[in-house]
């Protein structure tokens, strides 16, 4: 009976010794400090776009064929039309950086108008196809188009680029082509500023 009463005391003493030995065996201070930061998913024009977020302009010049009064045949081809600023050969060129693996693009556009009421046989509207080409890191380019004549979605063929953007300068180009109109074009200034429409809207998002 007496031994069993002292048993717990002996065990407790041994436990204290064990703790003491562990403390003396590890007399160093070891610690860790976590370092963190973040990169927000984003897309940005580099350098930043001009005020109002306007990337540039495409000047198509004289739209009508003087001999017919109708839209020039040369503007109706699928080649990029007009003089682009900034850029060249009909392409407004900008540099866009996205830090995501697969950004997406939304493209829409409004037809050109001059605000004049057209008489019979005339038209105050010129449609076109807006196009955006985005260079991909893997090579090649993703192309989306938006014909102002048609209804449908805000862009074609889709939103996801399917891969990361190239990080090269001038990796995004915007152009117009395939203009169309029915009838004699009324005299006036088409598109903004001065007329109506003629605005290509683009949104590029990181996801």
């Amino acid at each position, binding site marked *: 009976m007496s031994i069993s009463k002292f048993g717990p005391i002996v065990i407790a003493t041994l436990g204290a010794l064990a703790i003491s030995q562990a403390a*003396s065996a590890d*007399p*160093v*201070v*070891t*610690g*860790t*400090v*976590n*370092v*963190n*930061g*973040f*990169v*927000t*998913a*984003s897309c*940005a024009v*580099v*350098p*930043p776009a001009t005020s109002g977020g306007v990337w540039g302009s495409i000047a198509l010049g004289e739209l009508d064929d003087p001999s017919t009064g109708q839209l020039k045949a040369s503007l109706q081809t699928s080649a990029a039309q007009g003089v682009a600023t900034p850029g060249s050969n009909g392409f407004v060129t900008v540099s866009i*950086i*996205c*830090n*995501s*693996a*697969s950004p997406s693009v939304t493209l829409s556009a409004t037809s050109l108008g001059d605000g004049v009421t057209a008489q019979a046989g005339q038209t105050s509207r010129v449609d076109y196809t807006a196009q955006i080409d985005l260079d991909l*890191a*893997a090579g090649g380019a993703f192309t989306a188009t938006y014909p102002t004549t048609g209804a449908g979605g805000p862009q074609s063929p889709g939103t996801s680029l399917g*891969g*990361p953007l*190239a*990080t090269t300068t001038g990796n995004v180009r915007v152009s117009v082509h395939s203009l169309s109109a029915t009838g004699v074009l009324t005299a006036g200034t088409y598109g903004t500023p001065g007329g109506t429409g003629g605005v290509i809207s683009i949104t590029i998002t*990181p996801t």
Partner: protein
Amino acid sequence: MRMFNSKLWLGAASLAICLAPVASHAAAVAGGQVSGQVNVNGVVTASCSGSIAGTIQLGELDGANGQLDPSFTTNTTHGNTVQASVICNSNAPTVTISATRLDDGVTPPDPATYTSTVDYTARIDIATATPGTFTATYPTAGAGGPQSPGTAIGAALSAAPNNITISVTSLVAVAKVLTAGSYSGVISVTISPS
């Protein structure tokens, strides 16, 4: 009855043990002076104690071009610092510092033009009793030893609170776009008494 006898026996034994020293003492006194000494000793184990822990938050890492914000590349402190109080009882404590680079765990979509890691220099400043400051750094970009410039602090630690400061400097810019995500790294520090 048996229990009573047992207690009685224990009492007798205790008495015998007590009487023996008394008898010895009486004999010594009778023989003259008694000289003796008592040694008293103790030990202080060489050790360092304290706690080092915390988080350094750098915030948004990328700049306008999607690459590392150039302001992070200076050799000044970026983000907050972490302070700690460590007590060492030796005159020649040592420090070891190492760190892992910042990583967001994202596979770069195009490794040639995108990156998911950021290197930096981890730094520890130790206030010494001299007084002075011992500084050790560890660039995550480089190979080499676990710390720089060395392990020996060369002086006793200051006993003042917050005698340890850990910071991050000199993030390394590369001409690549940082992938979006949460970046994290770990600085490991060991301070030992020798």
